[in-house]
């Protein structure tokens, strides 16, 4: 028997969706990290919502790792009954960072994906309204939260 809800989730995912999950671990109580594969990411997200009750979206954001040549996109999700924070992650190559939009699964990820697009340059395929969220419409400075951002006016 798994000891906690966190471990139960990880065991269930390993049993059902082993091919979609790269790595799953409990960081500490109430914090679970799942690193998913880019292929089939949408299927895993749908399974998390429909089969594991993660129907309460919290947020989404990204982290840039230029040395390892990847950007990690992170979705923060919550299950209203077990109430731990699930961070669903996926690594994307820096030069062609693209992912199917999660707005099909969690509508409220719309704002967060718009922010990730303007701040990190991640393309979300199938996003219904991809316009800048926080930056001005005439912004020409590249992607501000990438580590190699040099200031407004530099080439993206």
């Amino acid at each position, binding site marked *: 028997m798994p000891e906690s809800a966190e471990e139960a989730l990880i065991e269930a995912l390993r049993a059902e969706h082993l091919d979609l999950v790269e790595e799953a671990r409990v960081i500490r109580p109430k914090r679970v990290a799942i690193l998913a594969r880019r292929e089939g990411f949408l299927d895993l997200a749908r399974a998390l919502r429909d089969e594991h009750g993660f129907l309460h*979206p919290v*947020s989404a*954001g990204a*982290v840039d790792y230029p040395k390892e040549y990847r950007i990690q996109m992170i979705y923060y999700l919550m299950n*209203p009954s077990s*109430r731990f924070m699930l961070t669903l992650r996926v690594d994307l190559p820096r030069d062609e960072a693209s992912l199917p939009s999660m707005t099909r699964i969690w509508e409220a990820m719309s704002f967060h994906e718009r922010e990730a697009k303007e701040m990190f340059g991640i393309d979300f395929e199938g996003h219904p309204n991809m316009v800048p969220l*926080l930056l001005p419409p005439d912004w020409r400075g590249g992607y501000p*939260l990438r580590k190699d*951002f040099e200031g407004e006016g530099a080439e993206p």
Partner: protein
Amino acid sequence: MSEPEIKPDIMRISWGPQHPMSGQTRILLDVDGEIVHRLIADLGFTHRGIEKILENRTFMKGIIPIERMVMVDTANIGLGYVLAIEEALGVEVPERANWIRSMICEMARINSHLYAFGLQAEATGYFPAVFLWTTVDREVLLDLFERLTGARWSYNFFLPGGVNADLPEGFQDKVIEGIQYLRGRFAQYWDAMVENAIFEMRCEGVAVLTREDALRLGATGPVLRGSGVDMDVRRDEPYAAYGDLNFKVITETAGDSMARLKVRFHEIGQSLDMIEQVANEVPGGPVRTRAPLFARAKPGEALSRVETARGELGIHMFTDGGMNPYRVKINSPTLRNMYVFERLAELDEVLIADVPVVINSIDPWYLDSDR
């Protein structure tokens, strides 16, 4: 923001950012006659790049910019960041410091909810006086903050490892005095606002958000609890001294603007009780462990969650062994609630005249959503 297309026979009104009731944002209203069909929020007018600023400062120095996110609620925001630092550096906090933290956080919550009441009274158009009352009454709290921390706003009082100073001589008595005064005042607010027939007409049944929609759209804080969802980080994942304090999670089932206001009203009552409990029962001992001011955190990550006045704030801090955080992701409550606001016109009938009431019922703080 480039504007989405307008449907035929629909007029688009641009509301804000100069409108007195809109705050620092622009809302596009697609209206047919008096009925609003679609709300579109244009955020970003107060974007300052706090996440990038934090990457270029040491852990300690980040406390100052991050508290600027929500000026009426600096304690809760600052605590979220400090908790993330403590998790990243592995710093322990003495019990007395935790109790003092909880007290200040609850005082800040009252301060913030008072401001929300004042604005909601303004938005209904009938009670400009209430805004003055709340502004006067929060002086009680600001004086207490000044006595304890030396500053009325943005006190930078929480540090990794505890709090900056111990409670001054006679502070608990002043707190009890202030609580008794505020309890009397809130009885008056209840009569003037919640029990008032005109206020009821403006708020009751306006912009109803059902339980399912609140969960699905990622609402948080009083917006989520006003729709009957029993979620509060203080109880679900106790931080500071909330594991030892007596309180219940407040929920309302109606899901309308009035329910969200009532949640805030009842939360203030709970906050006053908690502050009183801290003033009476705060344990002795040191208020700070010596944490190094300039420290290197080992590579890894820390994710802290706190319940601010507007809802759940998450600080996800990545460290790479350097003096600064590698990346700080701020999960801001207002950004989540603004998405709910955008959808409200489609979920329930909203009139043009109701828009100020609806936007203030989610209690937005645009410096929080824009960061």
